[in-house]
């Protein structure tokens, strides 16, 4: 980060650091703060500096409909985010905002995903529907829609692997390389990733099959499938443009291959 917000850290603050970006949540509700600390225990950060600050207002009667589509818009330098169980806004200039939400980690999780997806897009990175793990100092990503095998490949990971996520992977550029970071965002495994990072070696597009093999993927198809797996919420042309260019840059820097695998641990013999 080139700059960050600095201010006295009140006792009512919980700071969450993911991928080197810190989001501070301010709430007067001690139960909420405890819940957040427990949920993000491996990702708690020092609260002296932050990239984003949010005042949390807990709703007494929130809509329970979390199946609504997320709406994310930017208007006059202010981001607006809304779903059944939360609505939030934050200023691009001050990087401060307010979240009105249900007293649930699910709502907080969603807000964090949106904030990180926007922040990453502006820095040439992205959140991806992908499991990821570090092996031999290198990060491998396993992308795919629900059912493609993200949780399966995560469960099969041998003990020398560090699991970064079984659901949402965090990728950002560092110089001429890309680095994958652990995230607390978990899928069916129900277990947050490790708060570690490593350079991305390969992205595998997952497909279950009768045996293990790796196939090359043409460049254009790689970008198309990459874009299909990138989390992207905002209805903003400039951000769409950035995500598209980031996906193209990434596809030209990092090998993207198809991994057809049978759900057996031996698949990991091909991933080193």
């Amino acid at each position: 980060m080139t700059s960050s917000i600095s201010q006295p850290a009140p006792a009512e603050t919980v700071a969450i650091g993911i991928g080197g970006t810190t989001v501070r949540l301010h709430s007067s509700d001690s139960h909420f703060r405890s819940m957040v600390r427990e949920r993000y225990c491996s990702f708690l950060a020092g609260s002296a500096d932050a990239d984003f600050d949010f005042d949390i207002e807990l709703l007494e009667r929130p809509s329970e409909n979390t199946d609504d589509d997320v709406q994310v818009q930017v208007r006059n330098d202010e981001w607006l985010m809304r779903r059944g169980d939360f609505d939030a806004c934050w200023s691009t200039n001050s990087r401060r905002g307010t979240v009105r939400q249900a007293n649930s980690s699910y709502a907080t999780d969603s807000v964090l995903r949106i904030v990180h997806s926007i922040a990453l897009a502006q820095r040439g990175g992205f959140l991806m529907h992908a499991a990821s793990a570090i092996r031999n100092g290198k990060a491998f990503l396993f992308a795919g829609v629900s059912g493609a095998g993200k949780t399966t490949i995560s469960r099969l990971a041998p003990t020398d692997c560090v699991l970064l996520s079984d659901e949402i992977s965090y990728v950002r550029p560092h110089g001429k390389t890309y680095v994958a970071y652990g995230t607390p965002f978990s899928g069916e495994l129900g277990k947050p990733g490790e708060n570690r990072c490593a350079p991305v070696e390969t992205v595998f597009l997952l497909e279950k099959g009768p045996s293990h093999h790796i196939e090359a993927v043409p460049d254009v198809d790689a970008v198309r499938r990459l874009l299909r797996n990138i989390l992207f919420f905002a209805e903003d042309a400039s951000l769409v443009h950035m995500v598209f260019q980031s996906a193209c840059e990434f596809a030209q820097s990092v090998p993207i291959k198809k991994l057809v695998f049978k759900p057996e641990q031996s698949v990991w013999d091909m991933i080193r």
Partner: protein
Amino acid sequence: MNGATYIARSPAIAARLLGGEMMIMSAVDSTFFTLNEVATAIWQAADGVTPLSEIVDKYICGEFDVELPGAARDAEEFVHELSRHGILRVSNEPIQSPQETQ
């Protein structure tokens, strides 16, 4: 009005040439397109002021092994298809507004 068709790339798109194919993503609905070589040539020449007939004659018939009548018909269909998706603007008059550049 001289009966000519003018085409211009929409500003609401992101585009990139990769492996000889043009990839285009609509910033409006995130729809993703890939263009083959001939379509890419038309796309790149869509400056808003060159008539489509001249683009086909100069960049398609001049560069690819195709005959003018068929190429012109295919080009008309192509530009109207992209126009329907909002990534190409089509007009009977020159289009002067700013557009996406590579």
